[in-house]
């Protein structure tokens, strides 16, 4: 039995619904042995307030795609637009949470979050900026650690700061590249909860790469499956129709859960 409803990659949304649009995207890396085409004819639309997760084999080009959306990696052909406007380089409309927390180790948790806030809210008073940072640090459960040096925090705590930093600049789209890949499963679960709670509250669009099928299902409205490279594109899309807010227990107990899971694993193994 197939899951009840699967959106195929060709499906188009109404323009007003679309937050992020990748259009006939192509990426070529020049290598000593000639050009290597990582992505080609890649089309993907993500709706406003949608959470999509991306899975695919290692090396297929997931990070490449995400860094292009972030504006950190030049586009070879095609286009990326946010709310209908083509992106030009990185911008505060797109927040990024990296795989390694990438905090400045010489700064405190609070200073790390402030780093971006200064730029995004130039007219806010010092107090207001500080309050914004503290608000998000509270949200990720770091109320007691504002003034701890980043290097003194555990990996999990550091990634919490990374989440706070990304949300504090109020992005329209949040991009996450295997953000919990380096954490133990207990911490990973905690951080998934933190992430989904803030995301729910902020109502932003999220695109998250993961190699963990359970994580992909638990968090996503749709799971995007990428084909293997070279010339990777979107292979299939699976719509996850669980109600929100979700609890891990309810999701795992749901009849469709194993169907979804099997579908994704079949895709990865075929």
């Amino acid at each position: 039995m197939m899951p009840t409803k699967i959106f195929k990659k060709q499906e188009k949304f109404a323009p007003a619904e679309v937050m992020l649009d990748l259009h006939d995207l192509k990426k070529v890396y020049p290598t000593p042995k000639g050009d290597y085409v990582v992505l080609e004819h890649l089309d993907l639309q993500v709706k406003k307030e949608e959470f999509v997760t991306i899975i695919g084999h290692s090396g297929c080009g997931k990070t490449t795609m995400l860094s292009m959306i972030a504006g950190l990696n030049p586009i070879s052909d095609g286009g990326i637009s946010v709310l209908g406007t083509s992106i030009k380089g990185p911008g505060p409309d797109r927040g990024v949470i990296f795989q390694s927390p990438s905090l400045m180790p010489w700064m405190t948790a609070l200073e790390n979050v402030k780093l971006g806030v200064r730029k995004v809210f130039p007219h806010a008073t010092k107090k207001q900026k500080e309050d914004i940072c503290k608000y998000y640090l509270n949200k990720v459960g770091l109320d007691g650690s504002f003034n701890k040096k980043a290097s003194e925090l555990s990996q999990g705590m550091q990634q919490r700061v990374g989440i706070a930093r990304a949300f504090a600049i109020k992005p329209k789209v949040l991009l996450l590249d295997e953000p919990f890949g380096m954490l133990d499963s207990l911490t990973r679960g905690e951080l998934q909860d933190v992430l989904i709670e803030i995301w729910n509250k902020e109502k932003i669009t999220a695109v998250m790469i993961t190699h963990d099928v359970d994580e992909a299902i638990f968090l996503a409205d749709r799971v995007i499956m990428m084909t293997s490279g070279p010339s990777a594109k979107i292979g299939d899309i699976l719509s996850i129709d669980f109600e929100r807010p979700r609890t891990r227990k309810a999701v795992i107990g749901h009849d469709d859960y194993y169907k979804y899971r099997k579908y994704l694993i079949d895709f990865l193994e075929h």
Partner: protein
Amino acid sequence: MSDKLIKIIRFIGLGFLEPIIRLSRGEEPRKNGILILKIIIAPLASVLLFIGVWQTGSTALFNKEANYRIEKALKDQGQKAADEMKLCIDSGDISCQPNTLPSPSQVNASFKTLLKDHKAISIDKKNFKEKTAALNKQRNAEGKDPIVYTGRPSFVDQIKTSIKTVFAGFLLAILIAVPIGVIIGLSDTLRSSFNWLIQIFKPVSPVVWLLLVFMIVKTLTKDSDTDSSFIISFISVGLCSMWATLVNTAMGVSTVDKDFINVAKVLKLGPLQKVFKVILPSSLPLIFTGLRITLSVAWMVLIAIELLAQSPGLGSFVWEEFQNGANDSNSKIIVAMFVIGIIGFLLDRLMLAIQKFVSFNKNEGI
């Protein structure tokens, strides 16, 4: 309280004192006893061995020189002169002492002489100051320059001058090398276009730098009557020693973790914020590694430069004693050698402590 003490001595690199403190408090007597044996008694034994070898060596050299003198007297002036020479040497008379590597006790004696000399000169200076105080006040009121002490500097004064010069040179090196290093570190183009200059000038010997600085400073200070030797030596020291800092700064800045650069891009930091909040702090450890090398090079070349430039300081002290050829000159030179070595060591410890302080991973040993 004591644990704080231990932390402090560890931090300033005197960690070898730790077991003594612990033992004095009766902590783990066996373990700390062995530690003391290992890190204090054994090095002390090596110091004694060193002094022993030195003593033996200098005695051998003394005998060789003495025999040579006696034989020379015998050959040139006959048996009587030879006997007189032998007597004279044995009596310890200054006029006929063999001039060779001094023994440890001679060096120790010279050290004391130098300290006594310093005390005498200090008193002399103080008296001079008291005597001229009133006069200088009057001259000052009349708008004339005060009368200054122009007597011979003591050994300690020379040390102070050298330290002053090395820090002036070090400061100059920082002021030149860090900003330039940051600028060329930020740009691949600048780095490759200035690379030839760095590669060519880095290995140039201190002597040549001194001559170059001499040419320039002499012309620039033609019309002023200030003493240019201090200026010449500290600029030469700065120019000789700045290269390690320049290269390390450029490297630190150009190899900032790519993740940090991406964060700066994603957060849209302005160029100034990017440099001061991200790039500089993350390259600080490498910059300080460079500064540490710079300071030790500065101290090393300073002695040579003072010696050549005849500017006051330890270098010229050594050179003057060598030229002087008095019977205790050689042992004074050895005293200077130890002083130079110990100060160099302390400067390095100081930099190491600062370096540890600024590196964000405090546990990382260097």
